[in-house]
């Protein structure tokens, strides 16, 4: 059933890769990219790091597809949840876009 074996060397390399990615992420945040680009870069690096942890540290690479399926389904649910929730305020036609906190409905 085991397809690939996670060795100590692979773990060491993964750990170093995770640390390097952490410092790259830190470095990018210092460069001062504007808004969206900075967020996109940071999240992309986080996703790459997650893959390393999932496949090597959590041994997903040597497990049955059933276990991988759970990760895939979870990921799809998260994407659905986050995009739909964020899509509401992003596509609002009301004005102003940001609700006025002092505004109260008329009693």
């Amino acid at each position, binding site marked *: 059933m085991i397809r690939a074996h996670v060795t100590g060397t692979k773990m060491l390399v993964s750990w170093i890769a995770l640390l390097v990615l952490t410092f790259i992420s830190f470095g*990018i945040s210092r460069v001062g990219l504007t808004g969206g680009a900075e967020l996109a870069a*940071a999240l992309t690096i986080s996703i790459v790091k997650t893959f390393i942890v*999932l496949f090597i540290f*959590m*041994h997903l690479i040597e497990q049955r597809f059933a276990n991988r399926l759970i990760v895939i389904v979870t990921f799809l649910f998260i994407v659905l949840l986050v995009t739909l*929730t964020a899509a509401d305020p992003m596509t609002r036609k009301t004005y102003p876009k940001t609700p006025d*906190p002092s505004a109260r409905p008329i009693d």
Partner: protein
Amino acid sequence: MPVRAVELAEQFETIEKQEHAARLAMWVFLGSETLLFAGLFALYAAYRVMYPADFHQALAHNDTVLGTVNTVVLITSSFTVALAVHYVREDKSRLAALLLGLSVAFGMTFLVVKFVEYADHIHHHALPAGMYTMANAPPAGAVMGQTLYWFMTALHGLHVVAGMIMLGVAAIGCARRRYGRHRFIIVENSGLYWHLVDIVWIFLWPLFYLVK
């Protein structure tokens, strides 16, 4: 004293199927844990879109260097846990116990750094919900950002504590040679939980410390 092999429960045909069931159940549990955090990440996304400038103000309280130190600590602890699982499979239980103990110490380091940060926030009145007070009343979005920061990091902190308990129990079991080549699923599942705690932090760190 050799490690006792795992017993086969009557509902399973083989040890392999029994271990697969235990591992699959852990993955399902981790999936549900992830969805718990996903709800909060969704709120973060929605409120950040609504109040970009206010979020900037709320997150300015966070110390990027301390956050990065904690990221390195958690990633390293994940590495030591992965090594522990590797060695317990090779029947090197004492080495695994040592590595698990080291991971618990890393967890403790993480919590100490987090409490230093919390103490600083309390000192600056950067608190959640209505407790967030400054010279001028903070805007609604900043209060929301600060509330999400406290709630998400505190919930993550609770998971760190739970993970430390699991790793501690696994470490004691390894030290007493209760777990070894023929009995390691508990060590493996505790490790899986700890890696999830690490993954959640991998996302909390850029969202609360890096992207301002």
